[in-house]
């Protein structure tokens, strides 16, 4: 069994005004693993990364990076980690090279190693033509590439990527995803990635934790999370109150507890029940959807079932 590089135990954050952003979460990330934190805006992903990178002080619990407690030894924990933040944080007035060098010096990398690493990273991230230019002249995608390259100058044991592709267009997103996917092959590091793009998580992560309102509501490998919904789901578009329809489906035994309603759509995992049988049951129950389809479940369904479902039902 691989040792945990990131250990999080009962980690909590309560902001002023009793706003409970993270409600006692637990997870481990093994050395070399790519771990995803998934969740809607406000789920507590960025606060969790903030606590792990020592820029937010936890209210309770503990977190360790390679055995270093983020509260007791924050500088030690920062020394083995790098972060790519959600918002661009490079110095626009400095050149790309200045930004890389500054990171190296702050992480205590000697001049010789600095030169070698920068010379290796610049072509790997396609920055050769830009590196001497002020970062203010870079496009959004070029900045992102520079930020990831900068985070790697210190060869971190742990790399945090906080929504690394947010705000980028589709083509640049795909380029970046390829880059990130290549990181684990080129560098031995543990990666914690937060995102609300499910495809991104499925593509990159060994395991994902789905966060909702400050808690982890699901944690497993994407394939295993998908398997929980079975091989086929029935999707119904209904007129009127979708939640009322869902309640009727449950009462008739057509839908189980993991079915959910979002907007005008009711999603029913079939769990091996033939679709025809389910449709027959709908007719018998006099439920007439305006549209219906069966399809294989996606990570979107897992995510919506764990996050959107409870929210919609509670509303």
């Amino acid at each position, binding site marked *: 069994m691989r040792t945990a590089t990131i250990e999080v135990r009962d980690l909590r954050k309560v902001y002023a005004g009793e706003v409970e952003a993270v409600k006692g979460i637990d997870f481990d990330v093994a050395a070399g693993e790519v771990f995803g934190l998934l969740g809607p805006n406000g789920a507590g992903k960025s606060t969790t990364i903030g606590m792990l990178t020592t820029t*937010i002080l936890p209210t309770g619990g503990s977190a360790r990076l390679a055995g270093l407690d983020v509260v007791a030894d924050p500088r030690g924990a920062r020394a083995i980690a*790098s972060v790519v*933040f959600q918002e661009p944080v490079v*110095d626009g007035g400095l050149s790309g090279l200045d930004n890389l060098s500054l990171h190296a010096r702050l992480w205590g990398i000697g001049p010789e190693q600095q030169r070698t690493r920068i010379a290796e990273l610049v072509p790997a991230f396609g920055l050769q033509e830009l590196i001497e230019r002020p970062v203010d002249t870079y496009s959004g995608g070029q900045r992102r590439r520079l930020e990831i390259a900068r985070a790697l100058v210190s060869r971190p044991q742990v790399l945090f990527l906080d929504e690394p592709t947010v705000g980028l267009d589709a083509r640049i997103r795909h380029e970046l995803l390829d880059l990130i996917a290549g990181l684990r092959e080129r560098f031995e590091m543990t990666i914690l990635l937060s995102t609300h793009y499910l495809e991104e998580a499925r593509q990159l992560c060994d395991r994902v934790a789905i966060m909702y309102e400050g808690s982890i509501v699901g944690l497993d490998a994407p394939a295993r999370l998908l398997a929980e919904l079975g091989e086929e789901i029935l999707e119904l578009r209904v007129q009127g109150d979708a939640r009322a329809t869902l309640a009727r489906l449950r009462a008739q035994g057509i839908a189980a507890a993991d079915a959910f309603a979002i907007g005008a759509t009711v999603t029913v995992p079939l769990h091996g029940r033939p679709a025809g049988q389910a449709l027959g049951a709908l007719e018998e129950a006099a439920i007439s959807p305006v549209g219906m389809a069966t399809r294989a479940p996606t990570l979107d369904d897992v995510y919506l079932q764990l996050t959107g479902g409870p929210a919609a039902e509670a509303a």
Partner: protein
Amino acid sequence: MATTATGGAVIPIDSRTRGRARSTLLALAGRRARLTAGNPRQIAVPLLGPILLALVVAPALEKATGGLHSTVDYQSFVGVGAVGLVIPLSCIFAGLSVIVDRRAGAQRELLAAPVSRSQLVFGNLLVAVCLSALQAIVLVALTALRGGRFHVSGAGLAWALAAGLLFTVFMYGVAETLASRISKPEEYVGATPAVAILPFFFAGALYPISAMPGALTDIAKALPLTHALALLRYGLVDPHGQSLHAIWGAGNTTVEAWASLGVVALFALALTAISIRMFKRSAVG
């Protein structure tokens, strides 16, 4: 002392830690210096008002009022007094950079670096001190070129340098504290008249503090700028220490100079400590 061996050489851990701290500080100061150099307005604008005072207003006032009626030349008196405006303005501009770092996001990368948070403050302070010194030298040099008379000795220069340095540290502490407390640049700029300009009129920059009503003189004596200006004048234009006598009323100029330096040092230490505390508090959520 603990030691560690690297590649056959034994390096004392204390020296290694000190070397690392120095290198980090230089990296942070280098960053700030490059960003400042890329914004020439930050260098030139704080000088404009004080230069106008020293080169235009002082000669005109001297002509209109007959000067100080003492051995001290009024143009150099105001020229040095204008340093009391250039340093606060320069430090306030430097503090604005902290807000820009925070709002533009660059501060997050610095906070995630394995450096102590106080080093982030000291890196900026180092550049603020160098820039203020450069601006003060330009101001004094222009005053001299305009005809101001200076009396400079080695000891006098040391007093002036110590006073200028400590006052800059104090003012940067004020600026950094404000930058930690205020989130919007426009609100921060709104505080400039109160912290950078108002004390200038009470600290004897344009006239001796004894020329003001008694109550205002007492207020002036409590301002660090009054003590800093008295020391700058003692070092550069007034070897008899008339500004120091106006504060302390004692006979021994050296004792008065040490006392004033102590006051400025105390303010500098206090504001540096407060600014670091405020920065740490505001930077970490």
